[in-house]
């Protein structure tokens, strides 16, 4: 299991400073934070004025409008609250099977992405809850907010147990069963669920949150170097498949991979979810910088 230092180098966190999560609106009822809420209330940014009604805060009376129109108006400000951010981290066995030369694995990449998103959310006073899943839900880790909670969250994140079979359907069902405000759900996985995209489709249907799918990929996984008589073993389920990989096998494999990728994109669009692919051979902060192209995660 990777350590905190291995998973999150010092340069990694510094690259996350300018990024932030943002949604169009946040359901009311949360704590005061930096996310724009649907309701108008006590904020800093001016939003509108409305006629005064008894009971309004006198400090919000618009004096200029009273002098000009001889009527009382109350200034309205954008109310900023926290955003519930649920990060689902895939901990299945497939993520740790292949390591690049620098030791980077899909598993480490998912942790870095989860940590990056959590770090950004915590810095903006959003409430972060991390859920692991592999064969079932793991956790969730206690909800945290505030940047000071980040070191503890990192330790808990790295300590999440791993291994097992990907079961996105069950993970989404468990998350949907939890009470709480609607917020954002970021699903970080390679989406190699043995049940295929149908399981993902069903799982996403349970969620009422804004959904972002972050897919981690490994170089060469679309065209593995397989030839000859092989006994393929699924690292997650242990299922076996005997094949005779002739020269055309790689092409068919790549075609199947592309079809899966296309299906995943179609599925994300159907659920109104953001789909972003993170290759693990590129530094995660840089990849996330492209994800935050406009300075905010487009939730």
């Amino acid at each position, binding site marked *: 299991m990777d350590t905190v230092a291995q998973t999150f180098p010092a340069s990694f966190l510094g690259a996350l400073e300018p990024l932030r999560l943002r949604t169009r609106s946040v359901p009311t009822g949360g704590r005061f934070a930096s996310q724009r809420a649907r309701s108008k209330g006590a904020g800093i940014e001016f939003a509108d004025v409305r006629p005064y009604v008894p009971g309004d805060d006198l400090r919000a009376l618009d004096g200029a409008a009273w002098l000009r129109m001889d009527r009382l108006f109350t200034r309205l400000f954008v109310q900023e609250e926290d955003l519930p951010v649920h990060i689902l981290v895939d901990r299945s066995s497939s993520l740790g099977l292949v390591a690049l030369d620098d030791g980077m694995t899909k598993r480490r990449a998912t942790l870095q992405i989860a940590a990056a998103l959590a770090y950004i959310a915590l810095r903006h006073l959003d409430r972060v809850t991390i859920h692991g899943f592999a064969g079932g839900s793991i956790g969730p880790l206690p909800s945290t907010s505030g940047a000071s909670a980040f070191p503890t969250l990192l330790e808990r994140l790295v300590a999440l147990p791993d291994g097992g079979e990907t079961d996105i359907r069950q993970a989404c069902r468990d998350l949907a069963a939890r009470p709480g405000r609607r917020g954002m759900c970021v699903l970080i996985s390679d989406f190699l669920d043995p049940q295929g995209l149908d399981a993902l489709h069903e799982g996403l249907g349970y969620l009422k949150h804004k959904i972002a799918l972050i897919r981690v990929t490994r170089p060469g996984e679309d065209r593995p170097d397989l030839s000859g*008589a092989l006994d393929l*073993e699924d690292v997650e389920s242990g299922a076996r498949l005997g094949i005779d990989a*002739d020269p055309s096998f790689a092409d068919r494999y790549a075609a199947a991979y592309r079809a899966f990728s296309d299906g995943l994109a179609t599925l994300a669009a159907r659920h109104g979810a953001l789909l972003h692919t993170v290759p693990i051979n590129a530094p995660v902060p840089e990849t996330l910088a492209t994800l935050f192209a406009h300075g905010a995660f487009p939730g």
Partner: protein
Amino acid sequence: MTWLGLSPFGVTALLGGALSALFVLHLLRVRPRRVRIETLLFAKAAAPTPKPVALWGQPSRWLAFLLGAILLALAVAAAGDPMSTADGPSRLVLDAGDRVAADVTASRGVGPRGGQLAVPGALAARGLDLAAATARPGDVSSGLLRPTAPASRPASEPRVQTVVVDSNLPSAVRLAIAADPDLRIATDRAAITVSRMGSPTSGPALLIDEGSAPADRRAVATRDCPLPLSLRDRRGSNLTALSALPPTAVPWVVDSVSGAPLVASWIEGTTPQIACVAWLLEPLAHRDVPVLIDGSLRLLGGMDMPTTAVVGDPLSIPSLPQTTLSVAGPETLTISASDGGYHVAFSEPGTYRLTSVTGNTTVTVAAGVPAVRPEAQRVPNPWRGAAALLVIAVLLIAIDAWWHHRGRLP
């Protein structure tokens, strides 16, 4: 115990060969390289139907299948009786009456090798009728000598027996009968035979002692036996013994290890019968058995028991000192007694008359190992090329396996 005409050794060798072949195929099977991958989703979509990875599971490869079948057939043929299709059967049937013919038919193709000598009651008047032509190699299950004689026939009837000898009889039997002056080989099948019944005694007459080594195996007479056998058997004792004998059967020869009877006699009605295990009739290993048959015929015909010997083996005869022995027969010898007896070694088969001051003795000398018949020499052994074909088949299968699995073998 036999199976499809194969001896236990043949069955064992066949099974061992088959298991060895399977083991070799198991070693040569394609061992797919195990690769752990993240998911089988794409491989399942991309993989064609996997080909069988071994010849065993690939009957569509007709060449391999055909060669395997040929190999199996050749193995069975090579382990079978190579003499089974030689000129003339290796079986011996003396008279094939109704019952014998039925037995032959019933056991066709599944019985062990052996011979059967029989004189059924229905053909008693015709004497011994050798009807090997009705038998087929591998038909007969056990040796049975069953001479008969009418109960009313007085014991003083002519003492010369006439025996019809089929041309397929082992040469040793023919020689033994021909060398006996009291037996005559008839030219037709209407000869009269035994004139007096024998009366078997009780108890084993001969024990085959295993000894401490195979070479020590010898026959030990426990009492006066009907025939002075000296079974120089070099085979193990795990061969078949007589089975299903009537309760009144008297064993003549038993296996000293198992006690199972190898030669036995009994009286069925008024007919004396002698049964002999089939493997004792195989001339190369049991060259005294023809003499047994000859002596049995004499015994059952009420004749004197001759002294028997085999060509080349010394015969010791007790004698008084300073006496001479005159031997008259195919070769004439005069032998002086030494060390308390005469020591004679005959070089020619036949019947010899030994004359000394103490009396006269007839010695029947059997040829021992039968000579190969000229006609058998002319017939090529059809299985002679089986070994070469077997080697070729194995090579072809090996080449085919290599061609199919090239690049995949470990």
